[in-house]
């Protein structure tokens, strides 16, 4: 089996898919309307979540709380629902604020997430330019109705979301956006309030998502033909695990450099392999053929 992490070449032309995790239907509604998302047929993997899709954007409604958020994020990332192998992922929702100058209605870009219960922190990379205020966020297990001593945004999902997302993805492909709904003062937030808060920022959220989809260099997988050829070589030559890794790195590099590699690989498929020493000699020959003339 070809290791997933080795299946990467740089390709700036491709647009990544985007997974968006929200906790409540009322938060999802304005986004679904903005992106014109249609419900996706449920299968066994996604049956716990409402999943909508259009034009490379997949939105899941996880339910409230960090555990549900983590489950939805993991399930979605593991299900490979996306058509591109390395999507970006965003968590969007409402949050409370204990920062005096971040008032209700403000959209905030989150740069640090601390899980209040475990005191573990997570950091997404902020690479692309934006005009939003940035702030740290604390995820609590229950609603926060009194002002905190820490200056932070407060929610109930983000730590679960990011812990799961960072188990699969690069920190630069993870984004958390929160609209302030209250000042942690016990104000009751209705579903209509939540929708209104998100609705006020759908254009900006859409713009940021598109920016990440487009501007971060996309690692693409070796395609099915490449992988099939590679696997037949590995199987034919009975390559060891380390040889398989080395060969995969080599083929990935040649693909990234737009050098031919399929034809030389196929040429070597015809030779029979009967012993370990033959295998090793075959492997050396394979690399020489592929690398030959790489630079000189």
């Amino acid at each position, binding site marked *: 089996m070809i290791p997933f992490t080795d299946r990467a070449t740089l390709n700036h032309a491709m647009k990544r898919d985007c997974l968006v995790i929200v906790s409540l239907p009322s938060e999802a509604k304005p986004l679904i309307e903005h992106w014109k998302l249609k419900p996706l047929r449920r299968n066994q993997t996604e049956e716990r979540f409402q999943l909508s899709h259009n034009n490379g954007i997949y939105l899941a409604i996880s339910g409230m709380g960090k555990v549900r958020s983590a489950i939805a994020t993991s399930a979605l990332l593991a299900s490979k629902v996306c058509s591109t192998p390395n999507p970006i992922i965003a968590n969007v929702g409402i949050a409370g604020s204990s920062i005096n100058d971040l008032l209700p209605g403000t959209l905030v870009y989150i740069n640090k997430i601390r899980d209040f219960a475990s005191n573990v*922190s997570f950091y997404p990379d902020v690479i692309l330019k934006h005009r939003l205020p940035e702030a740290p966020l604390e995820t609590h297990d229950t609603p926060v109705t009194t002002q905190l001593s820490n200056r932070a945004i407060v929610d109930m999902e983000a730590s679960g979301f990011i812990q799961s997302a960072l188990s699969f993805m690069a920190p630069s492909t993870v984004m958390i956006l929160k609209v302030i709904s209250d000042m942690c003062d016990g104000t009751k937030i209705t579903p209509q309030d939540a929708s209104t808060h998100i609705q006020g920022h759908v254009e900006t959220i859409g713009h940021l998502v598109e920016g990440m989809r487009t501007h971060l260099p996309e690692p693409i997988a070796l395609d099915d033909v490449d992988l099939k050829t590679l696997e037949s070589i590995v199987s034919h030559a009975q390559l060891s695990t380390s040889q398989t890794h080395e060969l995969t790195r080599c083929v990935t590099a040649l693909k990234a450099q737009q050098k031919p590699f399929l034809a030389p690989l196929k040429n070597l498929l015809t030779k029979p392999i009967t012993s370990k020493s033959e295998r090793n000699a075959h492997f050396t020959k394979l690399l020489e053929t592929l*690398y030959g003339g790489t630079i000189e």
Partner: protein
Amino acid sequence: MTTLPVFSHLYIEEAARSLPLAEQIRARFPKAVEVSIANYKEVFNRPRQRWDHQRQSLKLIIAKRRDAFLYQGSSFVPNFAHDRFYYTTPILNCLYGCEYCYLQGMFPSANMVVFANDQDFITAAENTLTSDTPAYLCISYDTDLLAVEQLFGYCATWIAYAEKNPHVTIEIRTKSANIQALKDITPSPNVILAWTLSPETITHTYEHKTPSLQARLEAISIAQQQGWKVRLCFDPILRLPNWQANYRALIQQTFQTVCAEQLADISLGVFRIASGYRKALQERSPQSKLATYPYKVENSAASYTKEQTEEMLDYVSNELLHFVPQEKICPVPWQL
């Protein structure tokens, strides 16, 4: 949509926040977003970081080094006949983006870490490098200190240390042309400014964001005029198309600007890298021809073959002999 500028964010360890150097850095970046962290490793050592994404907008992590202030020198680098050979890493990572650099294989992040407890490094050096035996200390291996001297002032700190400790020879290795940063500092006889030079075609194609060859040469010339000891490092020598002609041109261009008589010495070494770092380099930069060149791998190191190494070192040495005597040429005593 564009990327955020370099050091748009300062990740600051709580333990480092009140250190004078940390305050000085924060004052240099008043518009930067500050993010509090408990330990620099929370940010720097995260898994699955994308080096190519981070290079588009480097962040600065301000930390406090708690241990390992000095390391023993590696066999990959020359000790210039010093038995006591150490290096120190007051900063991790580099502003420049050389495609062949081992840092891409060594560190999980492209972001830069600066340790703000500079005086703790000096104390460690004073305690370890006692005056009974000469010592050799390289302070700019895992970074380029001169390139960021205006921001962090680490060169000045170590030069002041060198003045008080004449038994310690300090090497500051750089590709920078930022000699202006040292204009108010008196040259110290036991401080060597060591410039890495590569043919213009390599500088242009593979040493991203570095000053041009001519800019480096002019900086060297100024350093010599000011009285600094200067070492030239033709290291790594890369076996690229027309490498002989390119290195001959490099050497000729070098000595049109640099005074050969005033040079302390010249270090020569072919490209070499720990094989583990090379794997990481290859995975991070599959598009890089340098990263994926079929180097010979032996004893956990990747480099050119013995014959290639000898051919390259002989060729460059012979070209140098037109300008400097043999005793000034120091090939790195390393090969597979």
